[in-house]
C-alpha cells in the first residue's frame, strides 16, 4: 500500500564493521517461517545476539537503542547472499531506518527500497572516515539525505547513488505495484504481440 515518504534520516549510528555480512546473519533461516509481517525484531542478528538457551548474550548489538541510533553503519558487501526480504523486514522491525555501507548486496538493496529502508552506498574512503568518526565519537550525528543523495556527518560528506525510481518511491511514497498496475495496457499489448 501507499508507503510513508522518506526524505531524510538523521540519527546517531551503530556499527557492524564485518564485511560480507550475509542475509543469513541478518536473519537466520529458521525465522523465515513467518506468514505475516511485523514481528522480526528479535530474529534480527539472532545468532549474534542470543545464546544457545535463547537468552540475550553480551553482544554489543543488544545494547543498541535504535530509537536513538536508527542508522546502521555497515561493512562492505552488506546483505549479500539469500534474497530473503525478511532481511530488510527484520532490520526495520529492529528499528533501523538507514544502512550506510561501501557496498550492498543487489537483491538486498532492491528489497530494502521497497520497505522504506534507505541503503546508501558511499565511496570506500568516505566510508572509512565515517567509521573512524563514529568509533571515535559514538554520538556523531549522521544525516542521510535521500533527496540530495548525500551522507553527512561532522567532517565527512559523501554522495551516493540510488536507482532513480527507488529514490522516487522513497521520497514521494510511491507504491511500485500501483505503478505497474497503471501500465496494464502495455502488458496486455506485449502479451498480444508475442508469437
Amino acid at each position, binding site marked *: *500500500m501507499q508507503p510513508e515518504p522518506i526524505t531524510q534520516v538523521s540519527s546517531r549510528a551503530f556499527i557492524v564493521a*564485518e*564485511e*560480507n555480512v*550475509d542475509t*543469513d*546473519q541478518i536473519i*537466520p*533461516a*529458521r525465522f*523465515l*517461517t*513467518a*506468514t*505475516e*509481517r511485523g514481528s522480526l525484531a528479535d530474529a534480527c542478528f539472532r*545468532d549474534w545476539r542470543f545464546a*544457545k538457551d535463547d537468552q540475550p548474550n553480551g553482544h554489543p548489538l543488544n545494547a543498541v537503542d535504535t530509537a536513538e541510533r536508527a542508522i546502521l553503519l555497515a561493512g*562492505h*558487501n552488506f546483505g*549479500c*547472499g*539469500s*534474497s*530473503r*526480504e*525478511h532481511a530488510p523486514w527484520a532490520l526495520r522491525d529492529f528499528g533501523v531506518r538507514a544502512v550506510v555501507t561501501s*557496498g550492498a*548486496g*543487489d*537483491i538486498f538493496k*532492491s*528489497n530494502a527500497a*521497497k*520497505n522504506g529502508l534507505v541503503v546508501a552506498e558511499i565511496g570506500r574512503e568516505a566510508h572509512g572516515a565515517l567509521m573512524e568518526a563514529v568509533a571515535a565519537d559514538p554520538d556523531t550525528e549522521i544525516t542521510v539525505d535521500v533527496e540530495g543523495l548525500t551522507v553527512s556527518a561532522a567532517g565527512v560528506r559523501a554522495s551516493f547513488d540510488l*536507482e*532513480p*525510481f527507488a529514490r*522516487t518511491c522513497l521520497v514521494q511514497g510511491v507504491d*511500485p*505495484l500501483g*505503478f*505497474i*498496475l497503471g*501500465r*496494464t495496457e*502495455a*502488458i496486455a*499489448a*506485449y*502479451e498480444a504481440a508475442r508469437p
Partner: protein
Amino acid sequence: MAPRPSEPKTLFDKVWEAHLALPETGENPGLLYVDLHLVHEVTSPQAFAELAARGLTVRRPDRTFATMDHSTPTTPRPFGARPVYSSPATKKQVETLEENCRRHGIELFGWDSPDRGIVHVIGPELGLTRPGMTIVCGDSHTSTHGAFGALAFGIGTTEVGHVLATQCVLQRRPKTMRVNVEGRLPVGVTAKDLALAIIAEVGAGGAAGHAVEYAGPAIAALSMEERMTVCNMSIEMGARAGMIAPDETTFAFLRGRDRAPKGAAFEAEVARWRTLKTDPGAAFDAEVTINASRLSPMITWGASPDMAAPIDQPTPAVTGPDADKALRYMGFKPGETLLGETVHTVFIGSCTNSRLSDLRQAAAVMAGRHVGPGVRMIVVPGSERIKKAAEAEGLDAVFRTAGAEWREPGCSMCIAMNGDMGRPGELVVSTSNRNFAGRQGPGVRTVLASPATAAASAVAGAIADPRRLMEMCGAA
C-alpha cells in the same frame, strides 16, 4: 530511418530485449515480462496476503507453478503421506501455500505429486525451464535455470507479489560479465569444484550488478546437470544471474520432457533457440578467464563461499580481519591444511548437487565402503523423480549399506529450516551452496565441497581428497 546493420549482441541482451514490455528510462526501470514464475512456501505468503489486501488476482496462473521444499520434512515416509512437520510454523507455511494455490488456480507440485522437489531441480526436470525464457522465483538460486540460456534471477517477496499480480517485474539492465573457462576439467574434478574456483577468483561481491555468461570449451563440455551446478552458484559472487548459451546438449536434455513442446513444435523452438548465443564481437562490461585444466577438488575454509581453496592447499597464511574471523569461527588455523580434519556430519543434497549424476558420483565413492565411525551422513535427493530413478539403479542401497540415511526430497540441511540441522560446533561437509556462519544450525561449521569429496570425507571420517578413493575403485 534507414535500417542499421545490427550491432553484435550478447546472449543476455537478446533475452532481455525480447522481454521488455516497457523500456527503461532515466526515471523508471524497464518493465520485464516474466515467462515462468516459480513459487514456494517460504517467500510467498506475504505476497499472496498483499494481493488479498488489494483485492487482486493472479494475472497468469498458467505461467505460475508452485512446490514445497524449503521447510518440508525429509524424514522417510510412504509416498503421498503427509509428513510430521518440525513445528506448527512450518506446517502453517506449507498449508498457506496449498490454500493460496487452490484459491488462485496455480498448479502445485504438492505431497501427492510424483513431480515434487526442490524448485530449481524440478523446473528443468519437467521441461518448464527452456532457453530464452525469463524466469523468476523468490529464491536467490534461481540463477540455476540460466544453464538453459534463460535469464533467471531471484526476487524478493514484494516482487513475488508484483509478478503474481502483473506478470512483470521492474528491472534496470544489469551490467554483463563473461567468465571464459578454457581447457577441460581434469578427471576427479567436478562442476562444483569449478564453481568454487570461479567464486574464489571473482570474490563474494565481485560480480555484483552483473549478469554473468559462462563460456569456453570447458563449459561446452559440461552436461546440463553440471551446467546447472555452475549457474546455481552465480549469486555467491554477487551476480544477478548466470547464463550458458543453449546448444545440442541443451536441446537433447529437453527433448521429450513432460512440459516441453513436442514434435514439430519442439523443432521449431530449437531453430529459434539456436540464435540465442553471444554474437562475435559483442562487448561485456567485464571478462574473467580461468583455466579448468589446472583445477583440483575445492573446499571452503571460511564462512563465505569465496573462501575456497584446492583441497590439498593450506588455508591462507596471511589474512585480514574477515579471514581471521572466519578461520576462528571454523576452528582452523592460518596456513594449515584441512585434509584429515575430523568430520561429524556429511550432507549430500540441495539444488546445487542433488541430481542423479551427483548421487551417482557420491555412490561411486561409497560403494563397498562404510562411513567412518561416528559420522552421520544424510543423502537427500532433489526431487521425487530423482529419488525414484536413484532407487531404480540401487543407489539408495549403496548409501544405506554404507551407513548413510536416505531421505525424502527437499532443501533439508542446505537451509536447515525443516528440522534437519547440524549441532553446535560440528564440522559438516556439505554439497550445498552456502557456508555462512549458522546456515546449517547455530554454531555449525560448514565446509562446501563436491559430492565426491563429501562422500570421500564421510568414509574417511575426515576431510579427504576424493581422487585417491576414485583411483582405488576405478572411477577415475
